[in-house]
C-alpha cells in the first residue's frame, strides 16, 4: 500500500512509440499489492511490452479472476477494456468476449489459485479450444491474499514460511498446457524482464492460445530461505533453455548477427519473429514431447526451465475451428444477425 499516487510527471526525455505515447501512458492506477511483489514487476513488463509493440490501448481487453494476481489489470493499461470476473472464471468471460469481437487483443491474468485450483476446468477448456489470447499466470505458490496457504503449484519440497511441510505434489501448468494443446507455452520469472518482455510480446503476437507461467515471488509469505519460489531460489536454479530472446517487429530487419547454429527464429502470425539465441541443445521447442521432457528433466535436477518451451507456428484458433465470420460479431447489425421470421421460413423451406 502506498499513500501517494505515482506522480504523472515523467522524464522529459522519455522515449515515445509510433503512437506518440510514452510507457507511462500504458500504466494503470497505483498498485495496492505488497511492496516488492513480483506481480508488480510482471505488470511493468506487460506495460513495457504493449508500449514497445505500439499497441493502441483501446484495442486491448484485459481480463482476470480473483486473487492478488487478478488485481493487477487495474495497475496496467488504464485506457483499455477490463473485466474483473468471478474466481477462476476468467477463461469463460474471455471466451465470450473473444467470440463477440475477435479483433481485440486479449490478455488474461490469473494466479496459481485462480488457474490451478478453482479455475482448473475453465483453464483446461480454454486451452483445448485454442482460444486466441495471452494467458498469464502470476505464480507465487501461495494464497497471498488469505495469509499464504499453499497453492496447488507449490512444490512438495517447499514448506510454508512458518516451516509447515507441503503434503501434496505440485501441478505444473506448463506441462498441462502443452498436453492440452496450447500452441505457445513459456515460463519466466518476474525478476528477469530481459526474458519476460520478449516472451509477452511474442505471446501477444501469437494467434491461438499463448500461455505464460511467470514465477512471481510473494515477498510477504513465500520469499523465505526454504521456499522454491523465492527470488534467491529462482535466481540460483533458473535454467533458461534459450540464453537470450529477441523479439523483432514485422517491419524491422534483423540487424544483429548471430553465431551459426546457435539461434533459431520463430515466425509469428503477424510477421513478427522471436529470435532464440544460444539454445540449449537438449531442447527442441517445436516438439511437444521433447518440451515436456525438458521441463521434467530440469525439475528432476532441481532446476526451473524457463524461456520459450513449446511453440506450434501453424496452429489454428477457436474462430478457425468454428468457422466464424471474418467480420467480428459485434460489428454485424442485428438485422443481419437475426434476419427475422421470413428468412427463417426460407431456410426451413430448404429442408422440406
Amino acid at each position, binding site marked *: *500500500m*502506498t*499513500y*501517494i499516487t*505515482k*506522480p*504523472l*510527471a*515523467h*522524464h*522529459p*526525455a*522519455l*522515449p515515445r512509440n509510433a503512437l506518440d505515447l510514452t510507457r*507511462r501512458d500504458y500504466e494503470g492506477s497505483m*498498485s495496492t499489492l*505488497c*511492496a*516488492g*511483489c*513480483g506481480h*508488480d*514487476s510482471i*505488470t*511493468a513488463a506487460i506495460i513495457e511490452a504493449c508500449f514497445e509493440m505500439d499497441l493502441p490501448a483501446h484495442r486491448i481487453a484485459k481480463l482476470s479472476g480473483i486473487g492478488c494476481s487478478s488485481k493487477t489489470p487495474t495497475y496496467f493499461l488504464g485506457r483499455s477494456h477490463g473485466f474483473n470476473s468471478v474466481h477462476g472464471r476468467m477463461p469463460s468471460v474471455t471466451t465470450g468476449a473473444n467470440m463477440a469481437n475477435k479483433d481485440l487483443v486479449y490478455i488474461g491474468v490469473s494466479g496459481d489459485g485462480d488457474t490451478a485450483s478453482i479455475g482448473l476446468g475453465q483453464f483446461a477448456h480454454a486451452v483445448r479450444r485454442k482460444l486466441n489470447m495471452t494467458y498469464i499466470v502470476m505464480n507465487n505458490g501461495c494464497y497471498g491474499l488469505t495469509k499464504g496457504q499453499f497453492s496447488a503449484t507449490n512444490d512438495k519440497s517447499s514448506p510454508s514460511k512458518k516451516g509447515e511441510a507441503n503434503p501434496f505434489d505440485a501441478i505444473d501448468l506448463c506441462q498441462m498446457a502443452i498436453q492440452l494443446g496450447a500452441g505457445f507455452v513459456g515460463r519466466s520469472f*518476474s*525478476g528477469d*524482464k530481459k526474458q519476460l518482455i520478449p516472451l509477452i510480446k511474442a505471446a501477444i503476437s501469437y494467434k491461438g492460445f499463448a500461455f505464460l507461467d511467470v514465477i512471481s*515471488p510473494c*515477498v510477504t509469505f513465500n*520469499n523465505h530461505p526454504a521456499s522454491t519460489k523465492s*527470488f*534467491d531460489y529462482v*535466481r540460483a536454479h533458473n535454467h533458461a533453455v534459450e540464453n537470450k530472446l529477441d523479439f523483432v517487429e514485422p517491419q524491422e530487419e534483423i540487424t544483429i548477427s548471430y553465431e551459426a547454429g546457435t539461434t533459431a527464429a520463430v515466425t509469428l502470425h503477424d510477421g513478427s519473429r522471436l529470435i532464440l539465441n544460444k539454445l540449449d541443445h537438449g531442447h527442441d521447442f517445436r516438439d511437444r514431447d521433447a518440451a515436456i521432457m525438458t521441463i521434467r528433466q530440469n525439475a528432476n535436477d532441481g532446476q526451473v526451465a524457463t524461456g520459450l518451451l513449446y511453440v506450434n507456428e501453424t496452429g489454428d484458433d477457436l474462430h478457425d475451428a468454428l468457422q466464424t465470420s471474418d467480420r467480428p460479431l459485434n460489428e454485424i447489425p442485428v438485422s443481419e444477425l437475426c434476419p427475422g421470421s421470413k428468412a427463417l421460413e426460407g431456410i426451413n423451406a430448404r429442408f422440406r
Partner: protein
Amino acid sequence: MQASEIAARARARMAPTDISNPKYFHKVVDCQWACPTHTPVPEYIRLIAQGRYAAAYMLNWESNVFPGILGRVCDRPCEPACRRGRLQTSNEPNAKDPSKKNAEPVAICRLKRVAADYKGDIDGFLPEIPVQKNGKRVALLGAGPASLTVARDLMPLGYHVVLYDKDPKGGGLMRTNIPSFRLPVEVLDDEVDRITGFGVETRFGHEVTSLKSILDEGYDAVFVGTGAPRGKDLDVPGRKEAAANIHIGIDFLTSVAFGHLEKIGKRIVVIGGGNTAMDCCRTALRLGAEAVTVTVRSPRKVMKASEWEIKDAIHEGIPILDNHAPKSFVIENGKLAGVVFEKMIETGVDARGRPQLKASGELVTIPCDDVLMAIGQDNAFPWIERDLGLEFGEWEMPKVDRVTFMSTRPGVFFGGDAAWGPENIIWAVAHGHQAAISIDAFCHGRTVTERPAPGHTLVSQKMGIHEWSYSNNYDAAARVAVPHADLKTSIRNLKLEVELGYDDKLAAKEVERCLNCDVQTVFTGSLCIECDACMDICPVDCINFIDNAPEDELRASLRVPAVNATQDIYVSDALKTGRIMAKDEDVCLHCGLCAERCPTGAWDMQKFFYVEPQASSACHSHHNAYLR
C-alpha cells in the same frame, strides 16, 4: 577482445559512489550547490511551508546575510540550477529569445522574500556580541555586502571592526545602484543596520584616499571591499560637446538614490544591455521621462541583463533596440540632440558560440535630451600606493588568492567586486565569509591556507510505514506569478516597490513545488533483493539495475539515457546477481516512492544537511535554537 582490453574495461567500470563524502549529496541539492554561500534552500522552504518565517529568515541570514535584500534583487543562481526547472517549462516565451520557453524552477528568490517580509521580531535569535573584545582591530574598506559580511562574521568573535565608506550610509552598491522601486530603503536599512548595530565602528562619508594611511593606523588586518565603482565611458564623436547631457549609469543611479538628481529630460536613450541599463531606463521613467529607449550593440539573446529584468522593462513599455552600435552624438546649438547608431548584422557565431556581428552601414538617429551610459564597470585603485608590497597584475587588478582572499601583502584581504571585477551581491557575501575565515586565522597566527571542513548530517525521514517527515507528494502546479503594483502608478513613483511579493497564501502554494532535493535517496545494496519494485515505480525512470560499465557506456544504456553530464550517477557495489544499481540523479522527484515500494528498506529517504564553515560558529549554534 584481448585479455588486456578486458582488464582495462573492468578497471574503467564505475566505482561505487562514496556517499560518505559530503560533496556527493551536496551536489544533488542543486540550488544549494549553485548558491555561492550554499544556503540550505529546501530546508528554509519547508520552514516557510510550516509558517515558521522567522526560522526560515534566520536560516537564510546565517548563510547569505541579506535575505530581505537578496529575496528581491539576487541574481538567483539557484533558480536556473533548480531540478524543477528541468521538469517543467512555462508557456511564456523567454524575453531574451522568444523562440525558447522559460524553465519553471521553484521561485526560490521570491520565497526568500516571504521569509523576510513575515519574519517578525528576530532579535532573540541573533548571536551574542562579546562585551570583552579580543583585542584585534580590523578595518573594512567600503560598506558593501562583502565588508558587511566580514563584519557580521567577525563581530561575534570579539573583533573591533572599523567600517569605512565614502557615502553617508552603508550598503554600497545595494544602496547606490539598485533603485528603491526594486529594493525599498527600509529593507536595506533593516539588514545593514542589524550588522552595524553589533557595535561596528562606522566611518561613513569619509573617502579613503590612501591605503598606506589605513595601514599606518596599525590594524591587525585590512579588508578591501570597495567594489567596482567606475562606470565605463564611450569615446565617440560628440562625447565632449554633449557631456552635460551624458550620464554614466551607475553615477546617475547613485545621484538618484541620494536625492541629488530628481529630474531628467523628456527623451532618454540608454546605451547598454546589462542590469544597470535596465535600472537606468526604469529610473528615467520614474523621473518623468516620456520616451525611453534602450539600445544594445549585440542581439537581444546575448544581452547581459537578467531575463526577468528585461521582461520588467518591456512590461513598462520601454523598447529595447538590439544590434544598434553607437557611432556619434548629435549636437545642435551646442547641446545633445540625439545619438547616431549603425545597425549591426549577425553573420554567425564565433568559436565561443557568441554571435559575430558585422556593421551594415545603415545609420539610425534617435533624437534625445539625455543619454545614460551603462556599458560596464571597472575597478579602480588609484588610492592604493604601489610600494606597499601589494602586487598588481593584469588590467591593474590586485593579485588576490582565490581561496584565502589575501593579497600579496599579508594581512590585506580583498573581496566582492574589488577582488576580481563585477559579480553579484551573493558572490560578495560568499567572498566575505571566506575572507573572514582568513582574517580570523591570520589575526591568531594560524595558516590562512588551512580551511575548516564543512559540516553535514544525514538522517532518515521515515516516520511510519507511509509517512515521511516532509511533503513528498509531487505537486504539478505551475510557478506562482508574483503580483505587481499597478503599472500606471508605479512607473511614475520612484519609491513604490513594483513587485508586491507573495502573501502567505501564494507562498503556501509555491512552497509545494519544491522537490525537497536535500531528502536523499540512500541505497543499501546489502539489503536489496533485486525485486525491481523501485525501478518499476519510479515516475521519472531514474533507477536502473544493470551490468556495470565505463561511465559513458553506462549513461547511454540506462532506461532513459543520462545525457545531462552535470548530474551524477549514483552507483552501488555489485549486487547478488552481479548487476549494480545505477540511479541518474538528473530529474529525481525525491518523492520517496522507491523507499515506499522497497520491501526490505534498501532505499531510505534521508535528509542531508550541509553547513558551510564560517569564521564564527555563533550564527550556526543559533540554528538549533530556532529550529526547535
